[in-house]
């Protein structure tokens, strides 16, 4: 019996966490139009200057907020996102062939990430059938209806924003800043969380946990 309780997750500085991120890595970054994006880690990546990153995220934020800052600093070689319309610099780099863009329907993006963290070989979705999204994809007919086989996504590192973390890594998110964070926390080798509040083990009731601490490697005070 394990009476000693659950191991604590290391609380680290931003600099210690950023040491894990190297050129050419694949990152998942939480957030929806920068709400729920761990902004201090994005700023840290800009300052560090790592480059040729691939970023999987909902969108590319704004030129001065969220993931958009990494676009402006030309640190990305590819983005896999559902929307780039709020960041004109993303479109400019796409047209100039400086940045590769894979546009994925938002629900498909969520399910591909969920599949990546859940050990699934992909998901079958009706979204995109009859559009350019189906190009090059396997179609599967189930009970007479066409679906696209969409493959899982995984990352080297996930950057997550939470409202509260306990020292076992259990997370609570707040309002619409939850978005992609819980599924990304399941789909990367190393998971780094920025939490606005860090509390002792036991202060978050197990029933209230939104992301179990077993997925988390490092916590930073936001």
């Amino acid at each position, binding site marked *: 019996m394990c009476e000693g309780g659950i191991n604590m997750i290391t609380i680290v500085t931003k600099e210690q966490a950023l040491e894990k991120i190297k050129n050419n890595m694949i990152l998942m970054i939480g957030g*929806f*139009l*920068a*709400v*729920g994006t761990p902004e201090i880690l994005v700023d840290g990546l800009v300052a560090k200057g790592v480059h040729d990153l691939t970023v999987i995220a*909902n*969108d590319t934020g704004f030129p001065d907020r969220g993931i958009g800052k990494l676009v402006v600093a030309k640190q990305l070689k590819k983005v896999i*996102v*559902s*929307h*780039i*319309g*709020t960041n004109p610099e993303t*479109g400019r780099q*796409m047209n100039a062939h400086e940045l590769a863009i894979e*546009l994925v*329907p*938002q*629900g*498909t*993006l*969520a*399910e591909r*990430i*969920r599949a990546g963290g859940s050990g699934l070989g992909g998901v079958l*979705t*009706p*979204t*995109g*059938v*009859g*559009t*350019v*999204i189906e190009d090059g994809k396997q179609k599967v007919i189930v009970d007479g209806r066409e679906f696209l086989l969409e493959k899982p996504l995984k990352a080297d590192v996930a950057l997550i924003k939470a*409202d509260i973390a306990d020292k076992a890594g259990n997370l609570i*998110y*707040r*309002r*619409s*800043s*939850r*978005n*992609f*964070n*819980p*599924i990304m926390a399941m789909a990367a080798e190393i998971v780094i969380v920025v939490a606005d509040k860090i509390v002792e083990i036991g202060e978050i009731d197990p029933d209230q946990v939104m992301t179990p601490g077993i997925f988390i490697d490092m916590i930073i005070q936001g």
Partner: protein
Amino acid sequence: MDVKSIIAKRVALEFKDGDVINLGIGIPTLAADFIPPSVQVILQSENGFVGLMPLSGEIDPDTVNAGGKPVSIQPGGAVFDSAMSFAIIRGGHVAATVLGALEVDQEGNLANWMVPGKVVPGMGGAMDLVVGAKRVIVAMEHNAKGGAPKILKKCTLPLTAKNEVDLIVTNLCVFEMTQEGLMLIELAPEVTLEEVKAATEADYAVSETLKTMAL
């Protein structure tokens, strides 16, 4: 009433008490202002909650709509992650989605996410919404700026989804998609059949019970 209000007010008449509704950016969002007091709908925001309402009180930076604008969540609302949000959308738990269009055609095809070589904002949640919602309502001005028709025989732009549109509401009229094709079912006040014909490229039938919009 201005053009956008005519469209939004007519769209709002489609909602039934208890419906879960997703409204796109622009004219669709305006429809929320015209929902009759006798009808209570639950607005879904695809970035992860139900119970969307206009901003009430102070701005909360963690509570925004799918356009990133500050909003509030009404008592009884619920927050979830993006996977559940789109399970709600694709799983048939949304009664209707209302969205704008660049083009829509007589086969119920919709194009609203990109203009090749010009504007490529991305589809966001639109492809999932159009495939998954029980009813797809297109709410838009009847013609493009400059007067070009937007209701076509066949869409020329990349599609958002194939054969999914159920209703088209414009400042001139309402079209319904039927088994036989596009059917003109209502005219806006003071709009004539000839005006609709001149402004529309698509082939359509005129309903035997053609009405005036009950604004």
